[in-house]
């Protein structure tokens, strides 16, 4: 990356953070969706136990995923700005 212009670098950086944002919004959206399903089941009295039981497993899985994704994006992207 010796011959890259500052404008190129800046655009690349913007795209990278957008990518990171998209990943976070995507996984976060799934977690939000699961919680919406619990709420719906609760309001309709439609076997909320199933929703809660499954969410107890699913939500931590997605949160762990989110954690790994954030740590990678953060770890790699901020490392470059420090360089």
């Amino acid at each position: 990356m010796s011959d890259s212009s500052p404008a190129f670098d800046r655009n690349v950086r913007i795209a990278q953070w957008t990518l990171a944002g998209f990943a976070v919004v995507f996984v976060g959206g799934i977690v939000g969706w699961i919680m919406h399903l619990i709420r719906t089941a609760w309001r309709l009295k439609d076997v909320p136990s199933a929703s809660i039981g499954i969410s107890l497993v699913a939500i931590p899985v997605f949160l762990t995923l989110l954690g790994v994704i954030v740590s990678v994006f953060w770890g790699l992207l901020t490392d470059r700005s420090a360089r």
Partner: protein
Amino acid sequence: MSDAVVERDRALFVPLTQTGRGFYVTVAILGAMILWGAIAYWVQFGEGLGVTGLHQPVSWGFYVTNFVFFIGISHAGTLISAILRLSKAEWRRPITRMAEVITVMVIFIGAGQILIDLGRPDRLLNVIRFGRYQSPLLWDATSISAYLTASTFYLYLPLIPDIAILRDHLGKRRWLYAVLALGWTGTEHQHKVLNRAIAIMAVMVIPIAVSVHTVVSFVFSMTIQPAWHSSIFGPYFVVGAIFSGIAALIVAMAVIRRIYHLDGYLKPVHFRYLGYLLLVMTLLWFYMTFAEYLTGYYGNEPEEMKVFWSKFTGPFWPLFWAMVTFNFVIPLGLLVRLGHHAISKTVVASMFVVVGMWLERFNIIVPTLSNPRLPFPEGHYWPTWIEWGETAGSFGLFILFCVLFVKLFPIISIWEIQEGREVGLKEVEERLRTYLPDEGSHPAAHGREKVLA
């Protein structure tokens, strides 16, 4: 492309830099398949599922079979790659990437089958708005989205250093590679971040993968239909999935090896080891199938037996016995002794297994639906050109995704091969040393000294 490091693995850059006529021919053929699928879907979207061969009582056919099959193939990858990574199997290096690519590409296709199968695809969002966790379909949706996210990320992570190599050396598509490389320069901190993330993902992806095919099987086993309502279905489907996944991986390896002359990277030993894995899975699959059918047969429950006989001697006998032959007899015969034909034998066995596993899914789904409990006439399902088209289109799209990936990214992990040369060799030697009795100290002698003293 002057760097000595790059020069050494020149063969791995060839797919990215050179595009021959074969590529365009392949894309054209795949495009034709996809076009067929697209036309079929267009017709089906307009007229309804009536254009398929589905009816009462066989309301699920090719699409659901394809769904289970494709999701099964997706176990190729991530699972194999994760297990091999965790067990520090050094021979994994040239094949993990390919396995992960298959997983990610095929899981999109698998999930897409549900959309094709819906009578009202325009209402797909109802699943998100009004989804109920009591339905196994929602378990699928959750599990598959976890798997999709995890395996995409798990493909991407080990790709980052390779993308950085491409960014610095390829000279083409710099914008794409610069963005995706996430500013990778190979610093110690970056390596630490990446390795930790890969390790976590490798552990995480295994239970997620197992859960995916377990809940896919639950779609069937949670009902009270004969030959579906079986407690063995979860593990049975997972075993079948890994089985078909390995087979698909072997076929893909052989194709890529042939086209891009990667004989130096994908050696007979890789096929041999995967062949052993395939052999184990063949035996496991047979064991599961045997257990499943013997239980049904011995119990002799009338509804169960209707389905049983329709598979063994009834209208489904050709498909059933073809399944047994393709999944067990042929692979067993070929894989027991590989001899000097490791590649050809494993590849032929794998091709049979891929077909056989598709038949297995079909044999689970359709015969049960064809034999209702009440005295209805038996259902006869025969797919129309619509279903054939959408199946061809799905395969075409899957292969096209893989072909495009090979054009854009290295299909064999460059940095991991380099790491194997630089770090792996030493590590293995050291590790091997720890397996052996410690040199210099002889515990037996020590013991004797103590006794003497």
